[in-house]
């Protein structure tokens, strides 16, 4: 048992202590409890979002029904950026506090973030063809999102290539943190450069330019994407905890109890 683990286990139980959950053995059951609420929220919100998107929101006056791609494209693009920032955040926390769980969180987020980046690119291409006449252009928004996808892939490939998990974590953290510069570039690319891509869909400062039902559908789908991402990351972080902590007492106990509920 390592130092951080035993000290976390000894943390006083009176009141809520955030660092109490910073050790894998206490976070593992908590993550398990959060799983079902996440999955249920993801399913309910997806169904509601799809219903609004296909049956309530009207056909667009200029784009026809091709615009309905927005209900996955925008949430996926948002999530690809948010997940990357979360990854970089956990890597930074890990480097500063030297907490094992932070790096595990980061690794757990990467594949889901990469999935969202891929979905954003794929749906963008299929939306670009009918509206711009091309699947792909090397414009600032599209190119920087493609770079984001490669950053995810690079992070995962680097981690997979280094056997020692501590070194893999540190090397990965470097990519994650340096690559985070790309996220504001993606976000502001439509302002900074002349691009084919349209401006921000939602702005906190300006009045909405979309029909309310379209906006609602998109936001509900965005919440669904959040719930799904949380669920997927929690499952993966639990698997990573077992894989990495194989030789610790708490994993041994978990395995010998054969308890799949916790």
């Amino acid at each position, binding site marked *: 048992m390592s130092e951080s683990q035993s000290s976390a286990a000894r943390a006083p139980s009176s009141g809520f202590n955030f660092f109490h959950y910073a050790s894998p053995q206490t976070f593992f059951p908590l993550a398990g409890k959060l799983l079902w609420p996440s999955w249920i929220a993801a399913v309910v919100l997806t169904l509601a979002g799809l219903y609004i998107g296909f049956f309530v929101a009207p056909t667009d006056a200029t784009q026809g029904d*091709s615009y309905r791609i927005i209900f996955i494209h925008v949430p996926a693009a948002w999530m690809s950026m948010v997940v990357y920032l979360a990854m970089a955040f956990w890597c930074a926390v890990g480097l500063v506090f030297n907490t094992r769980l932070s790096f595990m969180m980061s690794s757990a987020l990467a594949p889901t973030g990469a999935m969202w980046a891929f979905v954003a690119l794929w749906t963008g291409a299929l939306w670009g063809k009918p509206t711009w006449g091309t699947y792909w252009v090397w414009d600032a928004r599209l190119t920087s999102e493609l770079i984001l996808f490669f950053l995810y892939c690079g992070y995962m490939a680097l981690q997979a290539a280094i056997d020692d998990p501590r070194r893999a974590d540190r090397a990965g953290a470097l990519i994650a943190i340096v690559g985070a510069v790309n996220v504001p570039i993606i976000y502001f690319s439509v302002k900074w450069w002349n691009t084919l891509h349209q401006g921000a869909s939602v702005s906190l400062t300006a009045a909405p330019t979309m029909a309310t039902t379209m906006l609602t559908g998109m936001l509900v789908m965005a919440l669904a994407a959040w719930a799904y991402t949380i669920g997927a990351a929690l499952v993966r972080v639990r698997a990573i905890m077992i894989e990495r902590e194989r030789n610790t007492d708490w994993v041994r106990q978990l395995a010998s109890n054969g308890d799949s509920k916790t």
Partner: protein
Amino acid sequence: MNWESASHFWAMGGYGFFVWGSYGVTAAVIAAELFALSRRMTKARAQARRDVALERIDADKRGRA
């Protein structure tokens, strides 16, 4: 209601290929991720159980020796 019939719905005003191509592939990659996740968790748990079982066998052997 936006759609006169099911076939209108699937046609998506002529953009069916693009709309369903987007939704279909998204559904497929999410399904693939969920499948990979559940496999990874099952494997991790199985490996941990094997470790414990092997340790017990070792302990038994040492106990008899």
